[in-house]
């Protein structure tokens, strides 16, 4: 079944990444021609192993590369048909694109509530609307409401992750670039967070570009997926199809033909990935 048919996404493309190359420090070539597109109202997953370049791709889109001594040396990135190069991150936030960074990056010394409020920095629709959204975020993450007055630096990993997502929501985004939301979260919470992603997507029409290692969950919630390896897109397709792909099954879902195999039994010979010639 093609997932694209039964979801709320349209054919309108929001974000178009075309054959980009990224170099760090003038010498380290990390992305070697990555293309992808994010449709309006869709959840698009970006999968791949460590160091594949997921984070780099997201940062290239949100213009956060610059401060890490990285630059896009080739290719184009367009949001709603307009090139984003030359914009700064806050312009993008104003246009509705916001990134939730890998590793949470909460403002340690600010309280949870202040953290959330920084998310509304670019908004101009008045404090009442902001307050309403704050309540909404608390409704999504009751745990945050409990800890609203704590300094974010002292909250646990999961709480910080919620805080980071909640903070992004506060900007009323149209597209969220979500980097590894499941990392370090308890299984229940992972489900919960993805549930919220789904909710936001369906009820509020927020589009997602989602970088994930947890292929299993990601492919369950996403509509479309790209698999990245060593800076190249090696495979892409509707999530449902990817889930059935034998290679994906073996390398990303840890399933063999007989179902899930135990981590105790993995020291056997492994087949080489087909796309690595």
């Amino acid at each position, binding site marked *: 079944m093609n997932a694209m048919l039964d979801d709320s996404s349209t054919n309108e493309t929001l974000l178009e990444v075309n054959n980009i190359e990224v170099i760090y420090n003038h010498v*380290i070539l990390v992305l070697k021609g990555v293309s992808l597109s994010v449709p309006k109202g869709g959840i698009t997953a970006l*999968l*791949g*192993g*460590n*160091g*594949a370049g997921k984070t780099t791709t997201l940062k290239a889109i949100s213009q956060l590369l610059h401060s890490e001594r990285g630059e896009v040396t080739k290719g184009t990135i367009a949001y709603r048909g307009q090139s984003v190069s030359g914009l700064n991150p806050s312009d993008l936030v104003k246009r509705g694109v916001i990134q939730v960074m890998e*590793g949470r990056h909460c403002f340690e010394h600010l309280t949870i509530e202040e953290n959330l409020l920084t998310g509304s920095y670019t908004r101009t629709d008045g404090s009442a609307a902001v307050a309403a959204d704050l309540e909404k975020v608390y409704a999504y993450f009751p*745990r945050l409401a409990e800890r609203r007055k704590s300094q974010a630096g*002292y*909250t*646990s*990993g*999961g*709480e910080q*992750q919620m805080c980071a997502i909640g903070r992004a929501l506060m900007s009323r985004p149209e597209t969220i670039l979500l980097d*590894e939301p499941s*990392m*370090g*979260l*308890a*299984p*229940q*919470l*992972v*489900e919960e967070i993805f549930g919220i992603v789904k909710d936001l997507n369906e009820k509020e029409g927020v589009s997602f570009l989602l970088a994930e*290692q*947890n*292929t*299993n969950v990601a492919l369950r919630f996403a509509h479309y997926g790209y698999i990245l390896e060593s800076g190249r897109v090696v495979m892409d397709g509707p999530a449902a199809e990817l889930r059935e792909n034998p290679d994906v099954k073996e*390398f*990303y*879902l*840890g399933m063999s033909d007989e179902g*899930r195999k*135990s*981590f*105790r039994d*993995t*020291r056997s010979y492994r087949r080489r990935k087909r796309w690595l010639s």
Partner: protein
Amino acid sequence: MFDQAESFVTADGRTIGSVMMEMKNITLRFGGVVAIKDISFDVREGEIRAIIGPNGAGKSSMLNVISGFYHPQEGEVWYKGARRPEMKPFEVARQGIARTFQNIALFEGMSVLDNVMTGRLNHMKSGILSQAIWYGKAEREETENRAVVERVIDFLEIQHIRKTPVSRLPYGLKKRVELARALAADPKLLLLDEPMAGMNVEEKEDMSRFILDVNDEFGTTIVLIEHDMGVVMDLSDRVVVMDYGKKIGDGPPDEVRNNQAVIDAYLGVAHD
């Protein structure tokens, strides 16, 4: 004291030794926040002991108590049959306890090799003068320890990045380097805080293999925090479950997985 000296056989037929470390009624508070509430559990020689629980349950805090970074307000830590007085972290490390960290804590300014070599610092004793002239003991020691470290590097299959600055490594490899650093110390007890977070299945499989091999081949006792239930269930001999600082379950994986309290607080659905 119960079955202190005895050993027992686990479900899958592995022999687990006597009690190596025992946490007795540990309570840890930060100002108003109670991170750990009166928790007791033991760790036996040669086992893989998992700690699981929702975020903020106090798992990492527990590891920090074991490694001497946090000092609990109440409770005792017993190690190798004796009560451990309050110790500085580096003293704990010298007792043969090594660990990895939830948020990678590598030395970003050094190469992989140097990072792993830091794991051997407790085995390097040459004086400053000898080091200054780089002759005699200092040089010998360096070469000997280098050999040990190279074995660890081979074991974890990170030879190719030996000379790379760790800051340039991708996340997964960093985790592996951290494990290498801990292993280089030749620990009796190895504490792993979410060693597989942020990894894909393939990498988790690799990591699992390493952990099992360490446990098998060197008989290293391991305490493991992990959120991937597959990993926990497959690898561990016994599991402690924490929730909001309290212990809500303790036992072999199968037992824990069917414990209703655990399901409610943590797993959400019964895991297969």
